[in-house]
């Protein structure tokens, strides 16, 4: 077995870029042990060295979920060493994490990234001196120069623990307390997995995770830790976390003065980012600019480019593939039933979804650019005041924008919200933001019922989703999530030109997700659907789908949906299958109507009125998200009760609003 290294670094340090550079196409996504949170791994090119990408964090503590994941991985899974990505353009704050890693006494290799940015700003960093001070190996690199990175495997395998004099920057009383507490911990050292001096420091710092672990093994040490902490706090009249942070930062400032020429000037000189911010966060221009940018993104995704990719994919699936397959099956003499299963069931079901893959990729292209450029943080900054009114934080904007592509990564993006209340609310509200998989449903229905103003109809649905999310925010924050207020602390990172490679990898990841879903869940659902609509309960083949077992089931639940304007069995079945994946709604409709996607428009026109079609779309938009999203909700909320509440709330809201649309609409029209 090769060795394993953990990749750590601050958010915006370019960690993802470095991970992509190191591992290239070898990366894959797994799960963290204990929590099923996405975990990226890969192998360094031309080696057997594994790299695990830890979440971006500012500090080695346990205040947020991301921090706990990183802390647990390093202290429990014990990688052979750590690769720490540090942004040279923000040295002091990035080295705070480095200092904490050195305190852990694990082998650290430092990648000093963004050297190109620093050079452009005419700042000189003496990385050799920095390496000497921290007694670490430092690999300087930048977007323009990745040469040094190529030799990383030689550096890594040395596995040196730095002989850096850790704790030297802490005051005497703190050092004494660490030593005294470490002595106490020594009693149970054989049962402790980590360096006792570091554990002592963490107890003094009041790290929840570490204290919980040690309590079981050596309660006396934790009690002694509290005593020592209180003594220092009484003497200095400062809290210990504050003392430690201050002493670390004071030391880091000292280091920075030694390695950066003219440090103070470099800290205050106006940067390109400052100049761009003058426009993008401008008092008057900021909001119109934001709206224009977002309208452009959705316009290009939905009509500008999206239309063309859909037309192309429909031709590919509907004409080329279907015809080839039919011809092929006929040549081998397949029975009519097999042809029906393959063409109506599988190609009909899976094909209806695959058609939209390029469009989803386009949307994720834009989302990746918004995030990687640094603009996403500005959106959060500009919109925070509005979100605060709805009981949320401006940071909720990020999950919601990502959620407009797919709720799954959207809900996962809530992990950057430290405030538990903000996080829960955002998780519950994000599915109201229409996701990419629902878009095909609107496009189909809008084309069938509102051909002359389909854009306005689709736009109105997005707006409806946002409106419902906002109102729900107000209601739920008053009724269910009272107490703690929302807050907002967000780094506004330097603007950067997005790396094409990173954007391409993100797009490909989403396409892969979608295609694998099409190949598994949707494939299975299509086959089951085809079977259920081809046979009755005595398992004999039916001529008309309306005699099938699926129809019997559909007819059973159809009355529930009558008040919403669509009480037919096919639509009712489509709702149920929609839980598996929203794209399946179309597959279901096309399979059950027994027509290809193109002819579906005519079939739909026969059973819906424009009003019931709109009510239908509103229900699809607002009702409980797909299984994948529900399971991520469960994982992030870490509670079945909360998840159950969310799903019930979403579906009830959908039912109420669709009914309102249909019933009130019927009175008017």
């Amino acid at each position: 077995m090769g060795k394993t290294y953990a990749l750590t670094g601050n958010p915006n340090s370019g960690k993802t870029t470095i991970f992509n550079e190191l591992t290239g196409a070898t990366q894959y996504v797994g799960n963290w042990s204990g929590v099923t949170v996405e975990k990226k791994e890969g192998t360094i090119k031309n080696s057997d060295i594994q790299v695990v990408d830890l979440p971006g964090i500012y500090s080695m503590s346990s205040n947020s979920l991301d921090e706990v994941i990183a802390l647990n991985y390093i202290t429990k899974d014990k990688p052979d060493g750590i690769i720490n990505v540090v942004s040279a353009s923000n040295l002091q704050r990035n080295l705070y994490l480095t200092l904490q890693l050195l305190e852990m006494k694990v082998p650290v290799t430092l990648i000093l990234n963004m050297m190109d940015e620093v050079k452009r700003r005419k700042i000189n960093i003496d990385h050799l001196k920095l390496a000497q001070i921290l007694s670490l190996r430092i690999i300087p690199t930048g977007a323009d120069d990745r040469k040094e990175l190529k030799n990383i495997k030689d550096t890594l395998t040395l596995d040196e623990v730095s002989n850096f004099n850790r704790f030297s920057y802490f005051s005497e009383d703190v050092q004494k307390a660490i030593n005294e507490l470490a002595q106490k911990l020594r009693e149970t050292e054989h049962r402790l997995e980590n360096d006792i001096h570091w554990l002592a420091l963490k107890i003094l710092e009041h790290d929840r995770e570490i204290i919980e672990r040690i309590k079981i093994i050596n309660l006396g040490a934790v009690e002694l830790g509290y005593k020592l902490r209180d003594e220092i706090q009484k003497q200095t009249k400062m809290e210990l976390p504050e003392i430690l942070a201050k002493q670390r930062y004071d030391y880091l400032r000292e280091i920075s003065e030694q390695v950066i020429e003219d440090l103070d000037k470099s800290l205050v000189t106006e940067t390109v980012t400052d100049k761009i911010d003058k426009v993008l966060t401008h008092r008057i221009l900021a909001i119109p600019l934001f709206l224009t940018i977002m309208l452009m993104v959705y316009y290009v995704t939905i009509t500008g480019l999206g239309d063309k990719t859909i037309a192309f994919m429909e031709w590919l699936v509907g004409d080329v593939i279907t015809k080839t397959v039919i011809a092929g099956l006929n040549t081998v003499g397949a029975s009519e039933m097999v042809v029906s299963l393959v063409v109506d069931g599988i190609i009909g079901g899976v094909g209806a979804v695959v058609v939209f893959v390029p469009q989803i990729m386009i949307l994720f292209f834009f989302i990746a650019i918004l995030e990687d450029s640094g603009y996403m943080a500005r959106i959060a900054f500009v919109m925070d005041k509005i979100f605060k009114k709805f009981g949320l934080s401006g940071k909720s904007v990020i999950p919601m924008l990502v959620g407009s592509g797919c709720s799954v990564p959207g809900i996962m993006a809530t992990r950057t919200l430290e405030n538990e209340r903000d996080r829960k609310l955002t998780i519950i509200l994000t599915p109201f933001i229409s996701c990419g998989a629902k878009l095909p449903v609107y496009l189909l229905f809008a084309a069938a019922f509102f051909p002359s103003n389909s854009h306005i109809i689709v736009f109105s649905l997005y707006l409806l989703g946002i409106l419902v999310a906002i109102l729900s925010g107000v209601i739920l924050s008053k009724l269910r999530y009272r107490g703690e207020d929302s807050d907002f602390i967000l780094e506004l990172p330097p603007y950067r030109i997005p790396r094409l490679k990173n954007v391409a990898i993100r797009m490909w990841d989403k396409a892969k997700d979608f295609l694998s879903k099409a190949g598994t869940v949707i494939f299975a659902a299509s086959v089951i659907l085809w079977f259920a609509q081809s046979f009755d309960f005595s398992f004999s083949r039916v001529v008309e789908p309306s005699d099938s077992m699926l129809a019997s089931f559909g007819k059973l639940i159809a009355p529930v949906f009558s008040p919403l304007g669509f009480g037919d069995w096919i639509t009712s079945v489509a709702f149920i299958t929609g839980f598996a994946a929203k794209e399946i709604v179309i597959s279901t409709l096309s399979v059950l109507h027994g027509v290809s996607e193109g002819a579906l428009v005519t079939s739909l026109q026969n059973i819906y009125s424009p009003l019931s079609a709109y009510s239908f779309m509103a229900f699809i938009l607002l009702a409980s998200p797909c299984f994948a999203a529900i399971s991520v909700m469960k994982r992030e909320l870490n509670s079945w009760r909360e998840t159950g509440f969310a799903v019930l709330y979403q579906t009830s809201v959908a039912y109420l609003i669709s009914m309102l649309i249909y019933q009130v609409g019927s009175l008017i029209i």
Partner: protein
Amino acid sequence: MTIVDLKPGQSGQILELNLSTKIKNKLLELGLTPGASVMFVRTAPLGDPINIKVRGFNLGIRREIAQGITLK
């Protein structure tokens, strides 16, 4: 005097953080320690939050948090 009393472009030195433990720890980790220099950069278009600069990087924080950061 707190950060919100600064004018855009003005700087001050942090005296102490009168905030809840959670927010305080977060700010400390980001380098807003007593003695650190902070600059008020600008206010967001709708009047809240504000953009400050500390240790060379930009941070957006709500006014109510900024009011808890007293300056020398």
